[in-house]
């Protein structure tokens, strides 16, 4: 099997974001970067499939050279090849990212293309669906279970209050949700091996963006509330406040 996994570098979930002086993006100062958590499920699934059926896994990321540590993190899990699509910075417009990824993916003849269901920085949750549409491929998103029989895929995706079972056939695009698998730890051996794998850099002309971030701001600050009291004795007062003051019950 020939599998591609698109991965994105994102700020660590511990990050307390600051705003860049431009007011239009998050400040990158002092940020610790990680492989997008959902992309780890995508890489893991690809690796398991290749371990079972043979083939290779190529990780692909669009971004500046600064995203290479994240590409190496995916390689350290066990992927065989890596491509970085050159971009000065991550585009604000997801359509631009999707078109560039599709351009490169188109040349790879992949049986399966994996994504994370969402990048935890911009939370767009749309690049996988856009890439699938660009490549005219079947696509299932937010997938928590994947079975393959020959060319046929049966997947379960998470929906409100349950799951949806879909059938599609390869080649296909899948976006991974937590629950799909348990991503492996990066072993020291894997990390050493990953260091020796060359990262191919490709140039793609980026479309011009049609989505602009005008302003980044902090959400309205929550006023510190009050401690109603201690233990079960405080309950009647809490219920009164919820009923009479907040009027939510």
């Amino acid at each position, binding site marked *: 099997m020939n599998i591609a996994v698109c991965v994105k570098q994102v700020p660590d979930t511990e990050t307390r974001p600051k705003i860049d002086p431009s007011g239009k993006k998050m400040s990158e100062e002092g940020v610790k970067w990680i492989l997008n958590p959902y992309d780890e499920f995508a890489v893991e699934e690809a690796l398991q499939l290749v371990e079972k059926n043979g083939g290779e896994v190529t990780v692909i990321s669009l971004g500046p050279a600064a995203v290479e540590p994240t590409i190496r993190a995916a390689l350290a899990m066990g992927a065989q090849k890596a491509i970085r699509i050159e971009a000065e910075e991550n585009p604000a417009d997801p359509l631009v990212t999707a078109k560039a990824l599709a351009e490169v993916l188109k040349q790879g003849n992949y049986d399966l293309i994996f994504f994370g269901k969402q990048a935890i920085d911009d939370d767009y949750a749309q690049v996988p669906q856009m890439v699938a549409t660009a490549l005219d491929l079947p696509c299932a998103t937010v997938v928590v279970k994947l079975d393959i029989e020959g060319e046929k895929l049966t997947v379960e995706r998470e929906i409100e209050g349950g799951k949806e079972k879909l059938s599609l056939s390869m080649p296909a695009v899948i976006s991974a949700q937590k629950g799909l698998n348990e991503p492996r730890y990066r072993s020291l051996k894997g990390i050493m091996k990953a260091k020796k794998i060359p990262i191919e850099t490709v140039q793609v002309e980026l479309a011009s963006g049609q*989505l602009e971030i005008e302003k980044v701001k902090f959400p309205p600050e929550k006023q510190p509330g009050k401690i109603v009291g201690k233990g079960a004795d405080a309950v009647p007062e*809490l219920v009164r406040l919820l009923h009479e003051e907040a009027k939510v019950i």
Partner: protein
Amino acid sequence: MSHILIVYEIRDQKIKKVSFEATSAGVDLANQLGGTASALLIGSAVKDLAPEAGKYGVEKVFLIEDGGLEKFSPDVMASAIAQVAEQVGATHILMGATALGKDVLPRTAFLLNSPLVQDIIGYQVNDGKVTYLRPMLAGKLHTEVSLSSAYHLATLRPNVFPVKESPSSPEVSTLQVELPAPKAVVEEILAEAGGKLDVTEADIIVSGGRGMKGPENWYLIENLAEVLGAATGASRAAVDAGWRDHAEQVGQTGKTVSPSLYIACGISGAIQHLAGMSSSKYIVAINKDPEAPIFKVADYGIVGDVMEVLPKLTEEIKKLKSE
């Protein structure tokens, strides 16, 4: 002239509430921009639902009815929406930011060569120019986004935009589009036992964390949720311990929620958890540690043991409801 097209979500022959929220927002946007708003219903049998849309002020209802739509395919729906948008001259396309909307609308966006603003929580019109407000980093930051694309597409976060009744007598018309062969098809819906309410749709959420000590104590959460008509949520610690399914996880790598009431039981309030729930209108925290960070975002807190506080809370609310 602006033409706002609201794409309805229908499940079990019922229109989802988020579609009415989107309608009220769409009608308001049309008023502010000086345009019109229409509803689009797609399915194998949707005609009977058309009058529902009239309660919220749209001028037109468009129907795509086709037996072939009985088996749902996201790619087919995406294509149908794009075709309708072109046919009727839509300028804006709105849909709920649900599992369905988030899946389908990016595909439509690609077909229309326009980006999508996913999961908006507000919008503003200035001199005829719309900016959309959406969270990023699960709500740690908010961004104002503008579009220069041919179409504006946005999904609206459930429970954020109020539903406003404004009866109209819309003109109903059935449109013809060319449905492509489906590439991925839904074979079956596996509903959670008891048809559980999902956290993203719930108006009240009762959530438990590691402080609940184990799945055997979750009946305390469930009993309280039941008297409140609430959904149950969980912290990642409870999910990772295998006590609860991931579908319930609230936070940066779970679901982002904004109910009117969020009750956090035995949850410390780690930054990743706060990111997912701090936009709730009211937050109640029950935690035995007065220093727990959750109290910094809670409107009302009780310092105490969940095992004692929860049964009492359930009892008191039962009492209130029966009055």
